[in-house]
C-alpha cells in the first residue's frame, strides 16, 4: 500500500499501537505527525526514525483532552501541509479499578483522554477533510467497548462511546468522501498490559484461540488497510482484531 505524500496525524504515537502505525505509514511514504504526552526522548527518537523513512514527519507534545492544544496542532499541520488526509485517534489511557474504588478523577481522566480526545481531534480536522472532499478517520476503540470487562467501567464506557461516535460521524460525512471506521483490538502486547502479572498474562493467552496476544504490528496492518483505497467502501464499520477472543 502506498501513502506517498499523504498527511497522517496519529495521536499517542510514541509507543505501542500508535508507534507501529506511525512506522508503517512512514514506511509507506506518508508524512506522519504524531502526538506524545510524556516521553519526549522516545518521541524524538521515533521522529528521527520516521524521517529516515519519509521526510516531513514530526513529533508534537499535545494533550488530546485539551481542545485548544488540538486546534493548535491541526492549524499548524494545515498551515504547513495545507491538508490532512488521515487521522488515527489512538491516544488512550487506563485507570482500572472496581467501581467501588474508582475515584472521580479516574473516571474523568479516562473519559477526557479516550473519548473527549476523539471528539477534539475529529472536530479540528473534519472541516479540512470536508473541504478537501477526501479524508479518513480511524478510531482506536477496544473489545472492552463491545463486551464488558470488570474493573474497566471508565475504559469500557469511553471505548463504547467511540463506537457510537464513529458510526454517527461516518453517516454524516460519507457523502463528502470522508470515511470513518473503528478498530477494536483485543489484548495487545503494549506498555498498557505491562502491569499485569505473568500468571494473569498466561491465563489471558490461554483464553485466546490464536494462543498469543496481538502485536502492535497486527493492528497497524489493519489500520493501513482501512486508510487505503482498498477499503474505500468500508464506512462506519467496527472491526474486532483479537485473535478470536470474542468470536
Amino acid at each position, binding site marked *: 500500500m502506498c501513502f506517498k505524500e499523504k498527511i497522517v496525524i496519529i495521536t499517542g504515537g510514541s509507543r505501542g499501537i500508535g508507534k507501529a502505525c506511525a512506522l508503517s505509514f512512514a514506511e509507506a511514504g506518508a508524512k506522519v505527525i504524531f502526538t506524545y504526552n510524556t516521553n519526549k526522548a522516545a518521541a524524538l527518537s521515533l521522529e528521527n526514525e520516521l524521517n529516515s523513512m519519509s521526510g516531513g514527519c514530526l513529533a508534537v507534545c499535545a494533550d488530546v483532552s485539551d481542545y485548544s492544544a488540538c486546534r493548535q496542532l491541526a492549524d499548524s499541520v494545515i498551515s504547513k501541509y495545507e491538508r490532512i488526509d488521515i487521522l488515527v485517534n489512538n491516544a488512550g489511557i487506563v485507570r482500572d479499578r472496581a467501581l467501588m474504588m474508582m475515584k472521580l478523577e479516574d473516571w474523568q481522566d479516562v473519559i477526557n483522554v479516550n473519548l473527549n480526545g476523539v471528539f477534539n481531534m475529529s472536530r479540528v480536522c473534519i*472541516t479540512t477533510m*470536508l*473541504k478537501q472532499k477526501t479524508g479518513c478517520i480511524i478510531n482506536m476503540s477496544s473489545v472492552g467497548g463491545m463486551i464488558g470487562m470488570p474493573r474497566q467501567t471508565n475504559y469500557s464506557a469511553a471505548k463504547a462511546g467511540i463506537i457510537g461516535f464513529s458510526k454517527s460521524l461516518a453517516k454524516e460525512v460519507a*457523502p*463528502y468522501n470522508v470515511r470513518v471506521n473503528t478498530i477494536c483490538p483485543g489484548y495487545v502486547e503494549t506498555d498498557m498490559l505491562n502491569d499485569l502479572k505473568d500468571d494473569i498474562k498466561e491465563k489471558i493467552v490461554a483464553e485466546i484461540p490464536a494462543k498469543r496476544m496481538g502485536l502492535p504490528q497486527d493492528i497497524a496492518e489493519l489500520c493501513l488497510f482501512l486508510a487505503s483505497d482498498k477499503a474505500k467502501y468500508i464506512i462506519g464499520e467496527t472491526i474486532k482484531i483479537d485473535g478470536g477472543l470474542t468470536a
Partner: protein
Amino acid sequence: MSKNIDTEKIKAEIKQIVAEIAEVELDELTPEATFTEDLGVDSMMALEIVASIEKKYKISVPEEEIPTIRSLQNVYDIVLKILG
C-alpha cells in the same frame, strides 16, 4: 469608484455560487433570506459554499466564521472583509 464596481461584481459572483450550491433561482436569493429556514441550506452546503469561495478568490475563511454564516449577506460581509 472602481472598488464599488469590484464589490458589485464580487457580490454577483458569490450570489451565483450560492444559488448553484443551494439549488435556488437567482431571483429567489435575496441577501437577507436565511439559509436554513428560507433556502434549506444545511451546514454541509454552507461548507461547500465556503470551499468554493475560498478556491475562487484564493482566500481562507477562518473556521470560527463558518457557523456564523446564515445568509447571503453574511457571506458578502465575510468575503469583502477578507478581500478588503
